[in-house]
């Protein structure tokens, strides 16, 4: 297959970025999107030109490193996958493909398609954990957890932290990301003692980082490679409201 790529190139945050056109020739339909970019990059390197910078690591959809806006859709046209698990067979031969970085105020650009997503780490640091030190934990079976709660917690915990929800949202909101962690821990007995404080601190950090608010577009759920449900946002809102009304954990 052959494709015409229009790729965002920007040397540094100070540089004024631009779209640059590249040809991708003789691509097997079984090639992943990132492997297709690898092929284009190899040609650039052998010509002595700087290759397109993009983040990737595990290339099996779980590490959350890759983050490409492909034809205006976070992670591309295939549902329920990250950019690395998007395969060229989903495109038409000869198609023009536009590749851009995640765009959000809270994700400053570093170079080309690479952005700084450390704001998401800071949201977790604000309270996305159970305060338990190593050692002294009770037996794993001491506290039964209903299977349905464990499954639902796992549905939320699957978040890979890629930031597609932010990139897809017209408000660049990180509500789905934050809600996934708030809900995961609130659903389990181990996370319940800190649930109010956690919801309040994480939401406040999210606001401080410059993410927008949720106005129910649901673009986040559509873009999420793990198809995490927006219902968790409703759960987070309940947790947050309860935290605001209940000052006991100040």
């Amino acid at each position, binding site marked *: 297959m052959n494709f015409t790529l229009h790729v965002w190139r920007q040397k540094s945050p100070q540089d004024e970025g631009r779209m640059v056109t590249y040809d991708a020739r003789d691509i097997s339909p079984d090639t992943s999107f990132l492997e297709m970019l690898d092929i284009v990059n190899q040609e650039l390197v052998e010509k002595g030109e*700087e290759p397109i910078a993009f983040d*990737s690591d*595990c290339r099996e959809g779980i590490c959350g490193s890759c983050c490409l806006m492909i034809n205006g859709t976070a992670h591309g046209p295939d549902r329920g996958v990250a950019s690395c698990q998007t395969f060229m067979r989903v495109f038409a031969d000869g198609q023009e493909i536009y590749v851009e970085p995640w765009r959000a105020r809270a994700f400053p650009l570093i170079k080309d398609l690479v952005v700084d997503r450390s704001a998401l*780490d800071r949201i977790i640091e604000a309270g996305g*954990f159970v305060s338990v030190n190593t050692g002294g934990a009770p037996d*794993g079976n001491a506290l039964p957890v209903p299977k349905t709660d464990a499954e639902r917690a796992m549905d939320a915990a699957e978040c890979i932290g890629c930031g597609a929800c932010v990139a897809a949202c017209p408000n660049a909101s990180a509500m789905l990301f934050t809600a996934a962690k708030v809900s995961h821990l609130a659903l389990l007995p*181990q996370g319940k003692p800190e649930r109010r404080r956690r919801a309040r601190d994480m939401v406040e950090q999210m606001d401080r980082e410059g993410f927008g608010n949720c106005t129910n577009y649901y673009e986040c759920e559509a873009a999420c490679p793990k198809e995490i449900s927006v219902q968790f946002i409703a759960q987070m809102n309940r947790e947050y409201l309860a935290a605001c009304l209940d000052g006991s954990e100040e």
Partner: protein
Amino acid sequence: MNLDPHVPSGPLAQKWDKHRFEMKLVNPANKRKFRILIVGTGLAGGSAAASLAELGYNVESFCFQDSSRRAHSIAAQGGINAAKNYQNDGDSIRRLFYDTIKGGDFRSREANVYRLAQVSVNIIDQCVAQGVPFAREYGGLLFNRSFGGAQVSRTFYCRGQTGQQLLLGAYQAMSRQVRAGRIKMHPRSEMLDVVVVDGRARGIIVRDLVTGQIQSYSGDAVVLATGGYSPVFFLSTNAKGCNVTAGYRAYKRGAAFANPCYTQIHPTCIPVTGDYQSKLTLMSESLRNDGRIWVPRDGGDHRPPQEIPEADRDYYLERKYPSFGNLAPRDIASRAAKEVCDEGRGVGEGGRGVYLDFKDAIARLGEHTIRERYSNLFDMYHHITSENPYKAPMRIYPAPHYTMGGLWVDYNLMSSIPGLFVVGEANFSDHGANRLGASALMQGLADGYFVLPYTLSNYLASTKQTPTPVEGEDFKRCEAEVREQLQRLLSIKGKRSAQSFHRQLGKLMWDQCGMARSEQSLKKALNEIPAIRDEFWHNVSVTGGEQGLNQELEYAGRVADFLEFAELLCHDALDRDESCGAHFRIEHQTPDGEAERNDEQYSYVSAWEYNGVGQAPTLHKEPLTFEEVHLSVRSYK
């Protein structure tokens, strides 16, 4: 070179307790005076950083990814072993210990493995307390499944994403300490050298991957938790970024490298489809709980799998290993797959594949149950191959996955450089010549949560050190050497990309030093590697400059290390003139093709000392002594 393993005296089951009592402690008020540098934030590095920070130490953590949550432990799928015996099926600490020693083909250190089995039970408790959402029964208690090399169900799991959930547990514990100010996190930072001052590891040289700046960090101890080196084969199940650089550069500074030839080839991966591929994808071993592995009975049978009747199928693992069947250990299952493909009975394009069939399990349990257990793995297979595994069997083939070899460490997880500790896959200690499934997660977390916090404290309490400012001569010299190599890479301006060299090296290693090795193939590899390396240093094209984000420069440095390390790996494979575990020398096999060990001559750990690029390294031997285990022929029949 001092290779005293420092194994405590006394009966095996009491060594760790006794050692814990004998080790020195650091007074709580004094802990904050120590600074510990930890490279890598996977299960081992993340759990170590969190635990040490909770104790009150100042921790600085480094990872090359953009967030510590993305370390490659995240990709582990199947599960984590623990001797909980929740299933009442005969498990015990001793059985987990014995399975692990036997699984490693009696090439690991007895005392380390026993300790691993002991602390395995604490890991599950710790992770549950952190909120790791393990699979549960309807009654609310923890559920288990089986993994290879064991006849009990002791594997805990979170769907097909166990590594992700355990890593997020450690990441969240770290995040809590970042918030508390006890961990300083350095993402997008690559360690390029260890600084040894007066014979002790006192710091590291790091390249900030965003600015390109070379920076020195000084501390009271250095911990490497930098994972394995499977990408020496180019195609592997590892992440693109996995590399040997941190461990190899420590080796060049005097740390012994142990058993580099023990490389695990995982039996169930999606087969190679073309030369554009950047990596291979694992299909979890847990699938072998319900999937049956087979090939056509006769070569040249090209009918679609559904049309091949039972009588014309060969369920070769069930046939050859009736007591373990499809749950035979990885090394054995991989070699069996290679054997049937070598016989011309392989399936799929190129004939390098075997079927993993869920037809019977779906008929027995229903598609719903299979979906509940493995849906994300089936989806991943579907996305990659565009074939539906609920309807047709998966096609799988072995691929490089894990490396049992690593930097040599003693019982305290300290390398041959005092003050340099090595944890997780980066060390060599617990898996011998072959690792059993669901044991990597166990070892990473055992090292980080429950071993290192004790042994590192003991080191700090019993060592008198003076501060070593980064302005000192040792740091400046190392910085200059690191800069010089980067500039050298940038100045070549050749015609070939670093990736093309990596691919060339990987193919050579896979063909000559992969699933089957011989004196002849290893000598061929040792002959050809220097030529590839020479061409690399004359003809590699590294674009861009030293400043700012330069992914080609990062990658070229890693490939340069693989080009030296590959030679070490082959030297080790050549020296070990026996077959054991994943190391299969075709000269040494039983009449029915099983690995043939030579305990009289090779019951030792090979610890290699660096002598310079292209120079043969010096072999040191740590004899393996077994007090409790009787060395037997490893049989899964």
